[in-house]
């Protein structure tokens, strides 16, 4: 049998509340800064959203890898 102390219960409750609040804030911020893709729904929505958002956060300027002129032929 699992013994759940009052302290454990409080800590778990607080952690769950903090996690849910964090997710809600992250969702709001993502909407505000255009980090949610059009295909964010469905079973692949989570992966699509994380990929889309990280690409927009990481790639500020170039959308493709740039090589120096000295490497004209790869």
């Amino acid at each position, binding site marked *: 049998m699992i013994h759940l102390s009052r302290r454990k219960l409080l800590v778990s409750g607080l952690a769950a509340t903090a996690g849910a609040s964090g997710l809600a804030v992250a969702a709001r911020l993502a909407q505000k800064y255009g980090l949610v893709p059009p295909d964010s729904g469905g*079973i*692949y929505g*989570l*992966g*699509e959203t*994380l*990929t889309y958002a990280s*690409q927009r956060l*990481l*790639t500020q300027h*170039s*959308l*493709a*890898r*740039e090589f120096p002129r000295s490497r004209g032929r*790869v």
Partner: protein
Amino acid sequence: MAIPVSAQLPGETSIPSAVSTAPVTKLAPRHSAVVRVTHWITTICFFTLLLTGIEIVISHPRFYWGETGTVLTAPLFQLPIPSSRRLVPTGYGYVLPDQNGWSRALHFEAAWIAVLTGLLYVISGLLTRHFRKNLLPGRAGLSWRALWTSFAKPFRLERTSAAEASSYNALQRLTYLFVIFVLFPLVIWSGLAMSLGFASAFPWSVTLLGGRQSARTIHFFVSLALVLFLLVHVAMVCLAGFWNCTGAMITGRTATRKEHA
């Protein structure tokens, strides 16, 4: 005859034995909740990544080294399997159904979940000193003799003792550390290096691996190493007692039998 309470470890619970002379089965704490939850999420993600990864490889079962590689360039090696793309030369007279679309979407989704789960595991492991307590091998276990003994023991197909089942030997610890801190980061890095967006943001990450096609080849070989680890891991679990080990990874407690003095 009852076992004295003082002999019990903290958190241990004992199941009363019906016959006084029979061994007493004790439930000792084994894995924390974070370890168990992250283990099973990673397991689901790993199988998803493996299945979708195979589907992705089938669309182009040729591997190259360097920056570029196409059906018109000589491959480093080629898997002897048919392809799901008509233009990929495989030597087979037929083309497999193309499952590349959903496979890629699911591969990336499972990868995200695995990476986030892994981060949670590593942060929790550092905060709770899980790595130091359970995975960092002691100096005594690092001698060649001790490592060889740990390596050779499973081949003798001996049942592991209760003490051995409740902690990892030095070879197991080194293997887990290698998988967690070398293979997993390398498979993530080589996977990210194949992304055009990631390569444009961090070109050095691709250059260090020898190019995008080299990253793909490394990703393939590291995945093979992880599959090999999985096979050995499952074999060791079977040898150590499948239901006890699997139960411990679900409930967090492992059954240890104690004989009466």
